[in-house]
């Protein structure tokens, strides 16, 4: 009878002899794979001429109101070359509805490592229809889509802020006017107390928004807009600028922002931004487009420290089909 233990040892000895060869094969496979990756990577990247061709195409074919969306979101080198068409690319831009734009050009680099075209399309395509087949410029791919989320903007506080009247309101005590100096409504000596259209980051997204830092306590910073035509929807968006948004320290207080009808005093929209809320907060309501309405928007926070607020008050309407 064969000894089962010696048979097992024999098998182990065989395996022990095979192990180095198996390891060698695996190592060679890894090495050759890595070598292929390193050697092929430069060929998966676009050349400067490719960008120039894309820019020339956009200069020729893009319409006012078009936007260029980047995929993946971080391929911002395109911004060196493209002018005249706004370029959107930030962490999270794949799901931006871009509702202010009727058409979206998508500049993609599908050959980049870890490119997940299908994942992008799952997020991007619903509500969009292709208007042209994709065109290749080296490793760049340019596509044009109709944006079914498009809603023409009728009123934008960022666009109209120059005509606003701004002041700091201390309920029951009075107002401090914020005279307009041609660019900014400045409220006294404090640099941060101002109303102005500025670029700011809100949860990675570059936003051109209305900077309105809360004065602190029960005081509010207010911007009044004269009677302007509205669309069928009024939207208030507000957020804390930059890295301060993520703070949750106990001394931080919520920011309140509200929109009121100046004639009736009725509160039309209101939102609160709690410490730690990094995204732009958003509220909306339907409005009647029949009559122009004068509006005021205000911002308040008990403790103004690290509560630099940026907002947009807008009104849009359904696009004609």
């Amino acid at each position, binding site marked *: 009878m064969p000894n089962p233990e010696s048979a097992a040892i024999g098998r182990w000895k065989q395996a022990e002899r095979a192990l180095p060869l198996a390891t*060698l094969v695996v190592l060679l496979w890894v090495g050759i794979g890595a070598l292929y990756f390193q050697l092929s990577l430069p060929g998966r990247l676009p050349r400067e001429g490719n960008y120039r061709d894309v820019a020339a195409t956009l200069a020729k074919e893009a319409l006012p109101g078009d936007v260029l969306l980047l995929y993946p979101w971080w391929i911002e080198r395109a911004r060196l070359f493209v002018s005249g068409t706004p370029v959107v690319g930030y962490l999270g831009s794949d799901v931006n509805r871009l509702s202010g734009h009727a058409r979206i050009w998508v500049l993609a680099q599908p050959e980049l490592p870890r490119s997940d075209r299908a994942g992008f399309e799952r997020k991007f395509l619903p509500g969009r229809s292709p208007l042209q087949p994709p065109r290749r410029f080296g490793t760049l791919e340019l596509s044009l889509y109709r944006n079914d989320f498009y809603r023409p903007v009728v009123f934008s506080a960022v666009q109209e802020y120059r005509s606003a009247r701004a002041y700091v309101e201390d309920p029951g005590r009075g107002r401090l006017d914020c005279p307009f100096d041609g660019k900014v409504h400045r409220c006294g000596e404090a640099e941060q107390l101002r109303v102005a259209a500025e670029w700011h980051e809100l949860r990675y997204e570059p936003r051109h928004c209305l900077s309105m830092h809360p004065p602190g306590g029960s005081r509010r910073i207010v911007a009044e807009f004269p009677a302007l035509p509205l669309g069928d929807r009024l939207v208030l968006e507000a957020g804390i600028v930059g890295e301060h948004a993520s703070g949750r320290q106990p001394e931080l207080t919520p920011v309140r922002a509200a929109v009121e009808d100046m004639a009736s005093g009725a509160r039309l929209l209101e939102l609160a931004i709690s410490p730690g809320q990094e995204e732009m907060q958003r509220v909306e309501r339907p409005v009647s487009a029949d009559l122009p309405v004068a509006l005021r928007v205000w911002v308040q926070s008990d403790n103004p420290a690290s509560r630099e607020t940026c907002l947009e008050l807008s009104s849009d309407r359904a696009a004609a089909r």
Partner: protein
Amino acid sequence: MSQAMAVTPRWAEKDSWIAAALFAASMVALIATQAPVGFVRDESVYFVAAQSYARWLEELFRTPGQALTDAAILRAFEINHEHPALMKMAFGLSHLVFHEWLGVLKPAAAFRLPAFAVASLIPALSYLLGRWLYGRAAGLWAAISFLLVPRQFFNAHLACFDVPIAAFWLLTVYTFLRAQREERFWIWCGLSFGAALATKHNGWFLPFVLAPLGVARAWFLTRESPAARTWLGRWVGLGAGISLLFAILWVTQGPGRFVGSFTALSPAAALLALGAVGTVVTLRGLYRAQQSAFRAVAPLGAMALLGPAIFYLHWPYLWHHPVERAAWYFDFHATHVHYAWFYLGRLLRNPPFPLDYVVVKTALTVPISIFAPMVFGLAALGGRAIAALFDRWRSLLPSFAEAVVAVNAVAPILIISHPNVPHFGGVKHWFPAMPFLALLGGMVVAGAARGSVAALRRRWPAVGLPALAVPLFAVLFAPALIATARNHPYGTSYYSELAGGLPGAATLGMQRQFWSNNVTGVLEWLNAHAPPNARVWLHEVTGLAFQEYQLNGMLRRDIRAASGPWDAEIAAYQYHQEFREHEMNIWQAFDTVTPVTGLYLDETPQVIVYQRR
């Protein structure tokens, strides 16, 4: 392989020459590639500190009585007293000699020269240790692979402490292992540990890593010698007792009073003296009872006595107020601030940090052809340790030296993996683990080559090891070499094939860079395009680094540093996810969203330059 340690190592002359050649080759490689390496934020401060320390050394030489006063010491050493002085003194002296006196090197190269030398110890020591444990091929693999990891290659250029602490950690472990077999090597272990403590605070973890190993070995060796075991027990008991008493003093007095009452005649000082005397007495007893057991723990005794002594003696800042200034130092590192760090699509700002961070970051930043053997090596040792639990596979038990290597490959990673430990700084904080992981990689690659040759010889008897090892090394090193060459000098941006390179890492949501040195990628453009006397804001670049770029001829001297976009004509923004608002500030200040140039590595934006309209 496990029997390798059973053979007394013969430190053949040939191996010493190979180690020396590896040291020299590393020096040459680092010197040849140093010029374009930018000045990282910390380094710019170390340059100034180094000059200050060197001035003090000059003063010490000229007017020792004056230089030794606390006021003079404070004037010189107050700057950057967050870190010990050893490397900064070396940087300063090198600058003094090679730049100021001899004028043969530019300022930055002169500062960095000692860093190159200490970094070059790693390939040499890795070779010697690998040669001893697993043979020449494994030693060569470990030596070469360390500098073929692009982030390690980059850091080896810097007048900083992350690679030097890895070198001194390795040196301490190397001398610890040699002390197990060779007379008097324990003294070198103590001195190496002192150098580690004098380099960076990571060194203080070494005793926690090595002590259990040394004591366990001594315990095993004294199993048949009751007298030796008694002396060993006394020494361990002494250490445990003193540690306990220190802990009681700390808890009962509180940190403030404990530090305040730590005077020459205090209970704490008496405990220290008791520990020192007791260590000498008990280890002397152990030496007489059993020399092999003595050799197992003598390096630990030397570390305990020499390490803190060197730490104190090398750093004049501690001389007049050792306890409170050392206490400040420890408190600074124990309560270090957390910087924002982008990891897998989210910004880590505060603890607790993800437990997997260090492992994932290592996997994504070590070239896969070097990383895979490391993983296989660690798994093989683990597998052998588990198999050895069974009688029939007892012979697979890893040797003591292998256990030491494995523990040191894992310990620095485990320490930084703690969710409350600061997680910024890329991979540099666990560099001390990397030479040991490289050794395990060497074990696998050399083992695969050797074993395969043995198998092939049954059919082709003429096949020799080099015939297989050389092409295997070439295939595995080639991708790392290409990546290192393509990536240099932007080492903090490198990501491996596993990540998908820099583009893959950007899509994964990984930190693209840090430390500001990538600004060198746009300096040439600035020199060519900035108007005369232009005010330029180099985001994240310290004022000191700005000056160094000018001093080293990398930036035009007429260009002036702006403090922000508001007073700048040109701004170079460093792309960090947590700094996006800074770029928006540039858009706002310059009234443009269109950059004029930038540094884009494999398409990933790193530095973006804007010019005021």
